[in-house]
């Protein structure tokens, strides 16, 4: 995403509490965005958006409630929103005759692109669980604690999500 400049209107700095909170959570937010977008520039933009939203809407020094879960969810949601809208705008711009057929696509590129599109097609809270499970390597119990759901609910949701993702990327039986 292209960056938009903003002048410093106040001449003041951010509070030490907010800067500490940023230092403690930047990596969580940036890494989550990067996993979905695969671009440093886009991941930085998402990180900036997440912390801007936090300071304008939710930041209350001393008592942030389940802050990590909020930041992670917002990062994933914003990144998936970028994926969905990029896809829509590219589709509108694409000459349909110029589209390659599936046989001419490089397999890895095809799977990576399809996979991100497939995750973007899930509901945000389900996409978050998929990324927590398969990217961050959390167990069902840890995810349940993170998102405030039961372990059984998380396991069932992930099972349904797995089936949907498999259908979306059209993975042949036995493929690895």
């Amino acid at each position, binding site marked *: *995403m292209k960056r*938009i400049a903003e002048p410093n209107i*106040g001449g003041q700095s951010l509070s030490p509490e907010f800067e500490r909170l940023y230092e403690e959570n*930047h990596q969580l937010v940036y890494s989550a965005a990067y996993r979905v977008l695969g671009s*440093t520039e886009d991941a930085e933009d998402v990180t900036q*958006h997440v912390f801007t939203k936090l*300071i304008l809407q939710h930041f209350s020094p001393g008592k942030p409630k389940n802050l990590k879960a909020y930041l992670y969810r917002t990062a994933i949601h914003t990144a998936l929103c970028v994926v969905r809208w990029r896809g829509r705008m590219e589709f509108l711009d694409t000459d349909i005759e110029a589209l390659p057929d599936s046989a001419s696509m490089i397999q890895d590129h095809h799977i990576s692109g399809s996979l991100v599109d497939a995750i973007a097609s899930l509901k945000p809270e389900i996409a978050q669980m998929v990324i927590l499970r398969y990217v961050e390597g959390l167990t069902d119990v840890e995810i349940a604690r993170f998102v405030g759901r039961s372990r059984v609910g998380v396991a069932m949701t992930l099972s349904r999500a797995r089936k949907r993702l498999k259908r979306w990327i059209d993975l042949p039986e036995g493929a690895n």
Partner: protein
Amino acid sequence: MKREKKNIDDILKRHLPSASREDVESARGRVLDRLRQSLAGIETAPDAVKRLRLIDEEVRTAIRMLEGKVTLHHVWTVVNELADEPREIHDISLSIGRLGRKGLISIQALFPEIPAPQGQERLGRDGLAEEKP
């Protein structure tokens, strides 16, 4: 079933990229500088001011996502995907006006049908002001 589960698990683990430690560290400073530049002093501002700044942030993020290829309706739709509460199209058009007056977007480039305020000529044709080095 187990084999199918293993296959999709492998694909999910293998095909989503991860940031290097160097990327994370260099991004940390850059994003913090941008936050300091854009949000200095905002923490003590009244809630009403924060709300307007939040809508402006949502609109700017939407325009960045759309990479300059925008209509008012597109921006409104994206903002409502980003926001925690519904935004009226009126909120969006007012925000675009504010961002234009601050020189942060070029209304003329983004929405050619709307007359541009003075001082917009320095912005690029895609309607976004360049970040200062």
